[in-house]
């Protein structure tokens, strides 16, 4: 399984990567992007199974990224997860329309992230 982490904070990417490393999930590679545009370039260049994206980022936001992924219809098997400080009901509704499998609100405990990753990994494998 290849995982793509999209967050403008290098610290947050490092934390998520560390938690992924603590799971026993079959992860082949973890790739990082600092915004939606970078993430799209990575998706175009290699196979990714699980996308973990923040919402508020400069350049191209997480919502814009997810809209573009839906519009392009190139990655139907890509499991999409939002990790954001914005836990408002309207944002969650918006995510639901963008084929997002899980919505994880920051701050989160490593255990919660681990559970989300396990659920998402199950979706990738099934």
């Amino acid at each position, binding site marked *: 399984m290849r995982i793509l982490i999209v967050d403008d904070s290098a*610290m*947050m990417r490092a934390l998520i990567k*560390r938690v992924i490393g603590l799971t026993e999930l079959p992860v082949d590679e973890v790739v990082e992007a600092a915004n939606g545009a970078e993430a799209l370039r990575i998706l175009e260049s290699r196979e990714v199974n699980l996308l973990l994206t923040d919402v508020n980022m400069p350049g191209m936001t997480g919502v814009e990224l997810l809209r573009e992924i839906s519009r392009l219809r190139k990655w139907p098997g890509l499991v999409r997860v939002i990790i954001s*400080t*914005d*836990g408002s009901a309207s944002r969650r509704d918006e995510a639901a329309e963008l084929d997002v499998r899980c919505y994880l609100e920051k701050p989160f405990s490593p255990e919660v992230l681990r559970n989300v990753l396990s659920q998402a990994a199950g979706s990738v494998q099934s």
Partner: protein
Amino acid sequence: MSSVKPPDLFSPEAGTQVAGAVVAVAELSFFADVQSCERGQFDDLAATMGDAWLVATVHFREGDFAGALSCSLPRDLARNLLDAFTGRDPQDADPERDALFDLVGELSNMICGTWLTRMATSQTFTLSRPVVKMGDGRPAVGDDAVALMAINEWPVLVSVACLGDDTAAAAAGF
């Protein structure tokens, strides 16, 4: 800045909600011990700190309202939190400035986002990228201070200002 404060975000309860957001973020993401301070306790803690403080500001917009949340904390606390967040060994060499700034920016981003989510309005909010800078020594506790906290026994000041109108918000980068 405008003196007109939107009732939902700047109610008397705001301070309690901001303090709750600091507790949630510090405990969950940084595994820290955190509690609210009285003014005297905060001043006593701050007096023992050096002049190296960091200030992170996040601008936000919700509906027609715009504001800014700022967190001021000693550089030593930022390093302590960085170690907890990344699993860094405290005995390692001083972290790079960018790493500390990124960490403090993410802290303020999470506090602001958690607070706005807890204020439970139905609208989607927008946060700016955090702006982090070195403070001018110990921060003064002004009228916009909404939460005085101690994280791992280091002082943290959180302030919220109302920008009030579109012009001010545009100046803030929205």
